[in-house]
Every structure is written in structure tokens, then in C-alpha cells.
């Protein structure tokens, strides 16, 4: 296959970017989308042109590092799949594909398709944990957790923190990301002691990072490569409201 690409090129956060045209020949349908970029980059090096910078690491859909906005969709057209797991068999010979970085003011561009997502780390640091020090935890089976709750917590915990939800949202809201962590811990007995303060702190941090407001359009859940459910946002809203009321009572 031959694929035409329009790729966002931007030197650094302070410069302005533009779309540049490339053509990649001999694309095999078994290649992953990122392997096509490898081929293109090798070709660029041969031509003495600087390769395109993009984030990637595990290439098996779990680390959350890859982050391409493909034809207007984070991680491209397939549902429930990261960019690294998208294969060229999803495209046709002669297709033109537009590739951009995640767009959000909380995710400044570092170079080309690479953005800075440390805002998400800071949101976790504000409350996305159970405050338990290492050592002397009770026996794990002394804390039975019903299968249904455990499964729901697991489904929320499957978030890979890639930021596709933010990129998909017209307001660049991080509600799906934040709600997944708040839900996981709110559903488990271990998360109860800090349940309220967690919801309040994580939402406050999310706001201060410059993520936008949520209007429940659901674009985040539709584009999430791990299919994190919109139910989590409903749960976060409940958690936040409940915590706001009870904290005012103090």
C-alpha cells in the first residue's frame, strides 16, 4: 500500500507548528501504525531530514505512552485500541491520513507529536492513592471484597493514563481520567477513609491544571482505548457532591 500522511511538525512549545506532507510506500497491512512511522523515519534519516518525534514505548497497548490524533480521533478509527495496536489493515491503499498531537492547554507540545502530560501525574499526586505505608499490612484475605465490586474497581483501574479522553473532549476535560481513579478507590473498602478528601483534592488539582469542564457529551468514553465507562463520571459527580456537602458541615 501507499499511504499519504499530513503530520503536525512543531519544533518546540514556543514555536508555531504546521502540517507537513509525506508519502510512505510499501506499507504492509500487517504493520502497526507506529511501524509505518518507523519506516517513514528511517526514510527521512536516509534523506538527511530530521525524523518525526512521537511518543511510544511498550507497543502492546498498556503503557499509555503513544498518543496520536489520527484523522480527528485519538488513537485512530478503531474502538478500544491504542495507536500502537492499530494496524495498517484498517486503512486502504492511497489513503491520506492526518496525524496531530493531543490538543489541550494542559498538554503543551514538546515537539511534533509529543506532548507534556505531567499534569496527570500531579492529579494523581493530589489524592489518587490509599495512604498506607509499606510494611505490616493485614493478611490480604482478611479483607473480603465481593466479586462484583472487585470487578467494577478493576474495570475503572484499567485506565492507562494516555490522555485520549482529554484529547477527545471539546473542552479538554480530564473527568474520565480522574473519575476512573476516584471510582476504583471509592468502590473498595481500602479507599473509604480518604474517600471525600480524595474527590475534593483531585478535582481541585484537575481544575488548577487547566483541564476544561465536563458537559457529559461522552466523547471521552467513546474514544477511550480501554473503554472506561461514562458511569465513572457519574460516580465522581456523586462523590464530589457528597464530599462538598459533608466538608461544609465541618
Amino acid at each position: 500500500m501507499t499511504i499519504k500522511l499530513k503530520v503536525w511538525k512543531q519544533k518546540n512549545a514556543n514555536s508555531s507548528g504546521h502540517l507537513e506532507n509525506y508519502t510512505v510506500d510499501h506499507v504492509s497491512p500487517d504493520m502497526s501504525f507506529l511501524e509505518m512511522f518507523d519506516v517513514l523515519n528511517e526514510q527521512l534519516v536516509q534523506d538527511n531530514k530530521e525524523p518525526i518525534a512521537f511518543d511510544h514505548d511498550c507497543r502492546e497497548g498498556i503503557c499509555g505512552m503513544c498518543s496520536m490524533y489520527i484523522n480527528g480521533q485519538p488513537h485512530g478509527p478503531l474502538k478500544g485500541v491504542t495507536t500502537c495496536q492499530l494496524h495498517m489493515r484498517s486503512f486502504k491503499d492511497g489513503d491520506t491520513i492526518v496525524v496531530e498531537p493531543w490538543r489541550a492547554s494542559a498538554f503543551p507540545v514538546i515537539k511534533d507529536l509529543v506532548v507534556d502530560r505531567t499534569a496527570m501525574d500531579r492529579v494523581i499526586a493530589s489524592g489518587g492513592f490509599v495512604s498506607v505505608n509499606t510494611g505490616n499490612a493485614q493478611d490480604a484475605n482478611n479483607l473480603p471484597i465481593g466479586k462484583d465490586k472487585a470487578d467494577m474497581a478493576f474495570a475503572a483501574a484499567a485506565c492507562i493514563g494516555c490522555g485520549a479522553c482529554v484529547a477527545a473532549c471539546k473542552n479538554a476535560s480530564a473527568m474520565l481520567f480522574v473519575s476512573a481513579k476516584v471510582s476504583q478507590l471509592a468502590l473498595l473498602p481500602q479507599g473509604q477513609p480518604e474517600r471525600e478528601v480524595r474527590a475534593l483534592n483531585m478535582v481541585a488539582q484537575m481544575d488548577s491544571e487547566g483541564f476544561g469542564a465536563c458537559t457529559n457529551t461522552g466523547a471521552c468514553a467513546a474514544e477511550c482505548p480501554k473503554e472506561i465507562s461514562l458511569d465513572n463520571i457519574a460516580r465522581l459527580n456523586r462523590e464530589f457532591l457528597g464530599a462538598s456537602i459533608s466538608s461544609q458541615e465541618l
Partner: protein
Amino acid sequence: MDTFKLDAKVPEGPIAEKWTKYKSSIPLVNPANKRSLEVIVVGTGLAGASAAASLAEMGYKVKTFCFQDSPRRAHSIAAQGGINAAKNYQNDGDSTYRLFYDTIKGGDYRSREGNVHRLAEVSANIIDQCVAQGVPFARDYGGMLRNRSFGGTQVQRTFYAAGQTGQQLLLGAYSALERQIGKGSVVNYSRHEMLDVVKIDGKARGIIARNLVTGELERHFGHAVLLCTGGYGNVFYLSTNAMGSNVTAAWKAHKQGAFFANPCFTQIHPTCIPVSGDHQSKLTLMSESLRNDGRIWVPKQKDDKRAANDIPEEERDYYLERRYPAFGNLVPRDIASRAAKERCDAGYGVGATKMAVYLDFKYNLINKYGRAEATKHGIENPDIETLTRLGKEVVKEEYGNLFDMYKQITGEDPYEVPMMIYPAVHYTMGGVWVDYNLMTTVPGLYCLGEANFSDHGANRLGASALMQGLSDGYFVIPYTIGAYLSQEIKTKPIPTDNEAFVEAEKATKERIEKLLAIKGKQSPESFHKRLGKIMWEKCGMARNEKGLLEAISEIQALKKEFWSDLRVLGDAEGFNPELDKAGRVADFIELGELMCIDALDRKESCGGHFREEYQEDGGEAMRDDENFMYVAAWEYKAENQWELHKEELKYENIKIAQRNYK
């Protein structure tokens, strides 16, 4: 000729009491002094994140470094199947001793008894700690934790979270780390790569790190430095490691005096998705847990062109069940991998390249899960379709994400047709030599997790990597580091304008400039590919003297070519992944040579190291305990020159025997 005596510092006393006794006798550092002691942790995977969080909780000042954009992306995240712990929740006779025994035997009697017993002892605490953090392990309806089996064991001691166990464990450790970052007791440096260890008066006192966004070199002081930087499987180019996984930090430490142990011990994992073409950038693992329910087979007839489902039962060779009836499909990884290679080399392989075997779920899907579900739902005499439908639901719950991943990559549906799999490089048992305290041969420099060599001998058992990473980080280093830091309370932080820091930074800068100045024609990627090909063909699943000698001279030639014809575009300022890659490939080339030297020197077959000259008639590995029961620890002397130091292995609690899984 051995001028340096390696001292493993394993405490005296009965094996079951060593750790407990030693732990209570290690000097302590009082809380006020902890606040003035600084620890650098390089790498934020299971070992690094758990160590950094635990040390910060204790009061030390910690700095963490990772090359990824967030600590949460370290490659521990990709571990699929599970984590072992001697909990005996299944009442199937498990114990600390059995986990210890299985690990030593699985490692083909090439690991250190003291370390492995400690690992087995703390394994249960790991599960408790992770559950307390909110890690959502799989549970039964009654709320109790579930277990499954992994290779090389006859008990069920593997805890799991679907096929995403590594992710959930890492997110647990990451959340503990972020909690400390939020408190200010850890300062994290993402997108930073360690490029040298700084030594002052023979002790590790800090690192030189490169900010990968700005390109700036930074000097960081620490009273101690912990390397938690993972394995070096990417030396083979194609492996199940992440694209960024590299040996650079460990290699720089090696060149500063840290011995490198058993570099030739690499694990080739039996169940990976086969290579599909030249464009391939990495290989994807299909978890060992699949061997709980998947049966491995090839056609009995050579070059059988029929589709898998058209080959009748009696014309299938379930070769693992045939050769190893006691363990069947759950033999250790090295044995399963060699058996697959043997069948494919003999002409029984399947798929387009004939370099694959089937991993088939149909039998257990129908007979094990389908029937159990039918009984549960009170369906009498269920037909095959009903059984398939019911069984599929259970299989989906156990392995759903793996099946989806397989389908995504290959375009085939493993619920309908058997998976095709082939062995691939997965893990490295070798690594930086450490003593019982996890300290390297450089005082103050420690090494944890996959980056060290200590616990898995010549072959690691499945679900033991996560166990070791977390054991080292949560339960070993917080104690053992006291032995060193208690002696350092009078050491004031050393200003980074100290000559040693200035010199180290200068040397790092010169090396970067040298890489950029070559201005040749070939990309770092192309050199990496060529190195990988040499390593896979001559230092891979089977090795022999002739091949290894050839490999050494080919690697030396490749190195010359690299330093005279490399092309790195861009410059040292700003974000430049090509430059990062070039530095890593340069280190991989040097490591590759040492791996071949080590493989050549070890004239025996053991675990993942299979020397074709040393095998029995049936093709089983032939170990030589008389001459090779030692850890080969290599000291870097000069370019292409290493000196071998031997740490003799003593087995006082386990009777050494030939590994038998029949």
C-alpha cells in the same frame, strides 16, 4: 589471578532464620538523620517505584528518574499473567520452602540460596501490601483472592488481575510514589536518562542525567544510588521489552566498576506472537497463564497444509504432554521454548513461515469451563454449541484482553482458531552483580529488580519477576540500605561543582558530541537491527563455540562501523530521540560482546543457556555442576577486555539434582 574476592555477605545461620535475624541486626538510622540523607533512584518500575516510595515513607530524601514521560509507564506495566506468593490460600501444600525450592530448581541451580529464600519469605507480604493499596486482584464470589498455576510448579500460587497484573501492581507502586511526590519527600525527574554514575573516593555519590526535553546535562548528588533500570533483552532488537528499554544505566555503572553477572542468561519466552515481517519493531507476549488452559501442539505429519481445526485429534502431537507428562503444558519456559524450536527445526512448524506452533483453547473451553458452567446452570446433556458459548464467557473473563490483543495483531480470532505462537526474548536473568544487601561492587551503588542478577539463576519461573521487583523495593532495600547509610550520617551533601561531577559531565558531553560528529550514513536503528540479528542467530536459543566466536568478531566489526558511519540527525539541544537511541545502541553493542564471551566461557547447558555441544541424547540440557556451579561476574578492564570473577554457589538446603519435569 583473582585479585578481588567476591563477598556475597549472606548471613550465617539456618536458611529460614537468616533474613529475620539479619534484619533485626542491621544498624538503624534515626529519623532526624534520615532527613539529611539523600537517595537517588533510577528507574520507576516495580522495583524503583516501590523502593522510592518506601524509602521516602521512612524519611529519606529521594529523587527518582525515568526516561518515560511518567513513572507509571515503566515496562513493568506490561507484565500480564501474575505474581507468585507462598500464601497457600488454595490449601494445595504450598509453603515458603516450596516456593524457594521451585525457584532454585527452576533456575537450574544457578542462583543464590540465601537471596531466593528471602524472596520466598517476603512474597506473602507483597500481596498484603498491594491489596492494602487497592490493587484489584481477581476474586471469587465469596470475596477471597483467586490463584492460578504457572510453569514449573505444581501448586496454584499465582495472584492476578486478568491479563494486566503488572499494570495493576505498578499503578499501586506508582500511587505510593505519587503520594510521596505530592508530599515533597520525593522529587521526580521524568524524561531524564541517567548517563553516568559519579564516584568520589570510590563510593557512588550521584549521577549525571540528561534532560531529554532540553538536552541539558544535570548533576545530582545522592548518598546512595539505586539502579532499578530493568533488563537488557532489547540487545536482541526484537523482544517483548518496550522500545525504550535499555541497558545504558546498568552499563555505565558496569564501566564504573560494578561487575556484570551471568550476562548470557537470557530468557526466551515460549508463547509469543510470531514475527510477521521485516518491518517488525517488537514482539508481543501471550501470557504464560494461557498455558493453564491452552494445549500446545503441532501436526504429526510434516508440512501439513490443513487448517488447524481440520486436523483430527489423533493426528496432533501434544509434544509437551508427550515428553513431560508430570508437568505437561506447564513446564518451565526454557524447556517449553526449546521443545517448540525442536519441533519447528524438525519440520513440523505451522503457519506461513513454519516457525510457529499451536496454542489451542478449544479442549478446555468446552470440556473444562463449558461443562462446569452447564452444570452450574442445570443444563442437562448440553450440545457442543452450548458448551462453547458457556465456556467462551469464562475464558473471556480470564484472558479477554490477551485474546483481544492477539486478534488485533494477527487478525485471527483465538476463540475460533488456535493461536500461533513462537518463542521470543523476554527477560534477562543476568545483570549487575549484587550482594545480599543488593549492593553492587561499587560501595553505595545498589541494583534492584530485573537489572540485578540475583534470584532467578539460569531461568526465571513465570510470575516471579513481579515478585522479585516488589520484594527488592518494598521489603529488602528499606532494611539493607541501613547497613550503608548508618555509616554515612556524617557525610554532608557534596556540592555538584565537585571535580568528580565536573569531570563526569565533561566525559558525557564529549561522548554525545562524538556521536553527533560522526555524520555517517547509517541510522542508529539500522545498527540495532543488525546487532539483534547477530545475537539472535548466534547467542539466542541455542549457542555453540563456532557461532559465538563468529559473533564476537562480527560485533567488534559492527562497533567499528558504528563509530565511523553512524548518522544522528538533529543536535544535542532540545528533544532528539535519535540521539537517545544512538547512545543506547552503542551500549548494547558492547554488552552484546560480553554476552557472547560469557556464553562461550560457560561450557555447559543450563536453564536458558543452551550450548549445543552439551546436551544429552534426548536433547535435554547437560549441566556441569563440577566445573560451572558459579556466578560469572565480569569486571570491566578496558575496551574489549573483561576479567572473570567467580562466586561459588553452595547448596546447603536443597539437594542438587538434574531438573526433571517428566
